[in-house]
């Protein structure tokens, strides 16, 4: 940051300071909880609180979108409630459901006592018989949780519209029970893999952040955080090779989780440097490459070259990708 900039936009230097602390606190806490953040995610997370808007994360599969939500929950020290979307997801699975078995039993049990039908109805449609699903749970917590709506693009459009309504009103109407207002407004994180185009309305409602694959340095730091016992040099080597592999024309680009798997397996094999044991490197690539075609494409020779190249000390591995 450059000096002498404050005061310009609003003249409130002190207010400026509070904003900075908030944002920087979040950045610092993210680091504390072991999330290696990319450059501007902290700002986006701070804005969520400031503007009370949900955050939509997009990016390739495996770049760590879900991790952001988990880290956010840790940052605020609150619960993470996750709703995994899938095709055909409906209100019953996402919002609430009545406990039918108990209801039937209750009706049977009261049959003998000849109770008034209206009273039975009132009884079996009370809170006791209500099963909370993630969305309802999220708005009824005393402490605002982080609500992760994962892969929202897999749910269908109708559900999206419903979600939009919930996200703007934060209240739910259950016909038998009445309207339930949110006791706390959860922090909502949505992720999308782009299998379907999301509606403009939902996009507008949300803050947006595009999550990229981590660069070499960040990926190495991620490996080091997750696998504290790994050799620092090895972590960097792995990050560089993965970076180069992602540049190949692959059907399925390896994500960060795959990198960690690979690093763990190399550690298990007691590899100190990738160059020492190219065969083990090639054999363990099954952690990274998940289709037959990709396996065939990255042959032992290619692996050798990737490793060799690095040992020469040059840093333009990209060219290796092109020559396959």
């Amino acid at each position: 940051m450059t000096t002498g900039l404050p005061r310009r936009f609003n003249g409130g230097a002190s207010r400026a300071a509070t904003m900075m602390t908030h944002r920087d606190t979040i950045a610092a806490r993210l680091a504390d909880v072991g999330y290696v953040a990319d450059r501007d995610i902290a700002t986006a997370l701070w804005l969520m609180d400031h503007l009370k808007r949900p955050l939509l994360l997009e990016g390739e599969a495996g770049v760590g979108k879900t991790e952001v939500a988990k880290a956010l929950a840790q940052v605020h020290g609150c619960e993470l409630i996750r709703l995994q979307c899938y095709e055909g997801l409906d209100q019953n699975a996402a919002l609430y459901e009545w406990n039918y078995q108990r209801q039937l039993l209750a009706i049977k049990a009261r049959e003998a006592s000849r109770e008034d039908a209206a009273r039975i109805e009132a009884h079996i449609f009370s809170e006791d018989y209500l099963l909370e699903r993630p969305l309802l749970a999220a708005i009824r917590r005393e402490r605002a949780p982080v609500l992760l709506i994962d892969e929202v693009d897999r749910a269908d459009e109708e559900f999206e519209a419903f979600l939009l309504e919930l996200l703007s009103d934060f209240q739910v109407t259950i016909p038998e029970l009445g309207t339930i207002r949110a006791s706390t407004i959860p922090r909502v994180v949505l992720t999308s893999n782009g299998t379907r185009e999301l509606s403009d309305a939902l996009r507008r409602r949300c803050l947006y952040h595009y999550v990229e694959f981590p660069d070499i340095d960040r990926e190495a730091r991620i490996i080091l955080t997750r696998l504290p016992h790994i050799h620092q040099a090895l972590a960097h080597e792995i990050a560089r090779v993965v970076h180069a592999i992602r540049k190949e024309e692959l059907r399925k680009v390896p994500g960060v989780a795959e990198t960690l798997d690979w690093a763990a397996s190399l550690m298990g094999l007691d590899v100190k440097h990738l160059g020492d044991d190219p065969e083990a490197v090639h054999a363990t690539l099954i952690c990274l490459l998940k289709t037959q075609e990709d396996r065939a494409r990255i042959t032992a020779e290619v692996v050798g070259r990737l490793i060799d190249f690095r040992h020469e000390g040059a840093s333009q591995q990209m060219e290796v990708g092109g020559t396959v």
Partner: protein
Amino acid sequence: MSAASASIVGIDRSAPVRRIAGFMHMLRDNGFRVGLAETHDASLIVASAAGPSPRRLRESLKALCCSTHSDWDRFDKLFDSYFLGRGVKRVVRMTGASQDNRKCVRRLGESGSPERGSQPDRVESDEGQSAGNPADGRGRRMSASQAEATQVKDLRRIVDPEEVALANALAQRLARSMRARLTRRERARAKGRRLDLRRIIHSSISKGGEPFDLVWRRRKPKPLRLVILLDASGSMELYAPFFIRFMHGVIDAFREAEAFVFHTRLVHIAAALRDRNVTRAVERLSLMAQGIGGGTRIGESLADFNTWHARRVIHSRTCVMIMSDGFDTGAPGVLACEMRRLRMRCKRIVWLNPMIGWHDYEPSARGMREALPYVDLFAPAHNLESLAALEPYLARI
């Protein structure tokens, strides 16, 4: 960074909010989806003090105003140009045109293409094709009888402006009626698969708790998604405008439809087709479609589609409709390979070939022969009637 701050500071110290509003306006002009709520929030950000550092301001506004990946990529440039006075002030909005130019002109001057490209146009075809309904004879009559003539006339022969207008209207109505019939058919299905316990319990209360009336739930039918790939090469020149109208109708009517045009490369045109104004949409399209003349690289275009778009565009109930005459000037083998990849992804592949309507047509072009094994329905599309004949097929998928 200091240059950045200086200009942020310098220009508009007194009215930062107005300055932000101007920025939002510019974003809107560039196709960002920002409304009043966003402007309001942006001024909140400024007031709350993102002001101190241009970098923070940039990050904050970026998170707020972007809503797609392409927005994300363009934002920095726009921010720079507005606040720092760098670059162009207004980017011309050309939705969809930016897909990828990688393969653009790589193959200029490849031999054989011009001859092939123009060959079909020269073919002398006589009336024959028209009334006699194509191959499978599943012609469907439209009710309006005065439209009949236009309907069966080969699309290339429709030249009179009035006829053109009529044909266009027909193409669109056709596309709409397809959609209407499809949905009605779906709604008619009434057999349930699972019990709806919620409703059963509700209705059982009045019967003393005896689940007497059973209520069923049925799976909601998933609408068919149509993905159209239109060959806009020279050989298809005369048909393309009608197909584009047809596509416009389809995009308009189907809730889920996508459209691409290819010649030597692939262009995503669904966004342009969603333009309400048909004439303007068609004009935008012909601009996009013209591009590079000479030859058709069906194989390479399909490869582009498979690599970049298929994952997003195709789901389990997708029908891919390729409208092309199958004259491929790309490398042999590529088309077959890409058709196989496509085959693995989607439910049905329909190949519409306007030349089937001609006399004595044999699918002898190499491209066509390579593709045929992977095609589910190989049908003519030389007149509107043949397009209408597709509807029952689509309804069955």
